[in-house]
């Protein structure tokens, strides 16, 4: 009886909501109810040739290459018996001992790990926020000549920074998707737009690169251990998608900052 009552209340609410919704939707809207479209050459709503929609569907191969490169390096380092590689994994990739152990002992070969983890659309790692901030400050203080760096450090991260630059400067990225694809801020991306490679590369190569996972290690470890053909794996991928989209918004700390009406968010406000 109670379930039937609830169902009928739900139907009633739904019916009432529909009436409200239809009333608002079926009347011509005022000038401020819908934001104006973007300029004709950038608008999706005026994209009559569907070129911009297709550009969104175009896979950026650089991200897939970047992902493959990073996970390949991590896999190799995890299977290296040299204790110094642990330092590299901790400092460069911010990985915990637990995840390193799982990658090392998961029993999967490198190709299987790629299959589980490589994402051609969204990078699993981002440049650590602290590094982004320090580089932004560094460029703001002016570009000065730097001492020559060793050949080894030049080659190690040169490809990495060039790939980042290519993704940011992709001429077909009309909507600034590099931010969500790479997990970088607009101010940081301006480094690659404002300066030439000859100007930014020496500074970037001289910096201590540190990457950070954009999703939780639990999800990564679970995805590695799951059968990539199983429904559980597909469900974990959705969780990863969510976390990547959420980390793009920086999570609850910054969410609190950006909320338009803080007086209505209840327990979050102190």
């Amino acid at each position, binding site marked *: 009886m109670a379930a039937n009552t609830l169902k009928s209340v739900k139907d009633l609410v739904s019916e009432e909501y529909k009436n409200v919704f239809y009333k608002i939707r*079926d009347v011509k809207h005022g000038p401020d109810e*819908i934001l104006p479209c973007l300029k004709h050459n950038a608008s999706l709503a005026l994209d009559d040739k569907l070129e911009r929609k297709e550009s969104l569907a175009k896979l950026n191969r650089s991200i897939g290459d970047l992902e493959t490169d990073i996970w390949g390096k991590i896999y190799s380092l995890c299977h290296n018996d040299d204790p110094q590689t642990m330092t590299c994994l901790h400092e460069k990739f911010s990985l*915990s001992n637990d995840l390193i152990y799982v990658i090392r002992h998961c029993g999967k070969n490198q190709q299987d790990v790629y299959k589980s983890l490589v994402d051609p659309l969204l990078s699993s790692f981002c440049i650590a926020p602290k590094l982004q901030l320090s580089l932004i400050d560094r460029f703001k203080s002016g570009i000065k000549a730097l001492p020559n760096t060793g050949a080894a450090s030049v080659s190690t991260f040169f490809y990495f920074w060039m790939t980042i630059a290519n993704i940011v400067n992709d001429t077909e990225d009309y909507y600034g998707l590099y931010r969500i694809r790479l997990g970088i801020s607009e101010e940081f991306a301006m480094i690659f737009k404002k300066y030439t490679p000859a100007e930014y590369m020496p500074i970037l190569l001289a910096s201590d690169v540190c990457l950070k996972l954009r999703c939780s290690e639990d999800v*990564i470890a679970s995805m590695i251990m799951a059968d990539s053909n199983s429904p559980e794996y597909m469900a974990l991928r959705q969780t990863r998608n969510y976390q990547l989209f959420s980390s793009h918004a920086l999570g609850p700390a910054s969410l609190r900052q950006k909320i338009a009406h803080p007086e209505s968010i209840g327990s979050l406000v102190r």
Partner: protein
Amino acid sequence: MANSNTLENLLPIRSSDRNYAYQMAYVLFDYGFSDNNICYLVNLDHRTVAKIKKAYINRVGKKSSRKATKMPYEILNGVGGVFYAQMVVLYCHYHRGKIDDALDLEAMLLAWNLVTIRNRCLRNKDEKDTPVDRYDNAFADLNINNLFTLCMSLRHSIRAINDSDGCLIEYSKKRQVIYARSSMVDFDEADLLKYLGKPTSVLKIKEQLKKAEKDRGMTTDVINNSRPHRKVAPLCSQPENTSDTKNEMVPVSLFKLQPLTIQAIQTELSSENDPDAFTKK
């Protein structure tokens, strides 16, 4: 979809403003918007929209299917809700103004494209070993009109009249995700999240692997002899508190996410170092 079907070939041009409306209506028909929703979005009368639709169908040969309008609770309360919730989060992020005041069609289309393209790529039906999973049917049934309804329900004008069913944005501390859910009273906060994968703790996986190795009689390897390292929280997480299973709620539908700024990063950095930052003012 034939890309050469530009509007000049379909309808006569009457004025520059009307031309934009006609052009937009054409594009929106391609996305699958219903007649009524297009009338609202482009501010044209039903008769004109019907003419555009007829010309579009004649040229493209695409049949339109009429589906009843669903309300937020129905849209979000199902496996497909996983995708709609992602879209709403992205819509909020890319919205160029105040979410509670105005609808941003560009943000809506961008969010729609990002999620559908992403999931289509992950599926890639041409591959033989692509698994059929519970998301497939839901993905195939995605309807942009449902996203339209959710985005409209974020607006204050609708919620002020009837706030019993609408779209809320919340943060799940347990799953470390921002997601959208219906504000219906009996909508369980885990109803959407139950369709997401439940990751096993990396520590637990490690222990399982260690146990398996021990059973096989393998020796302790170099990992255990390395120096201890503080576990670094990923960008989206908060300090762990496994005893607290209650999700952190943001019971509000009205906020705008702005592009990353220095201030936002600084706030994130200060909260990384302060385990209690999330509960503080």
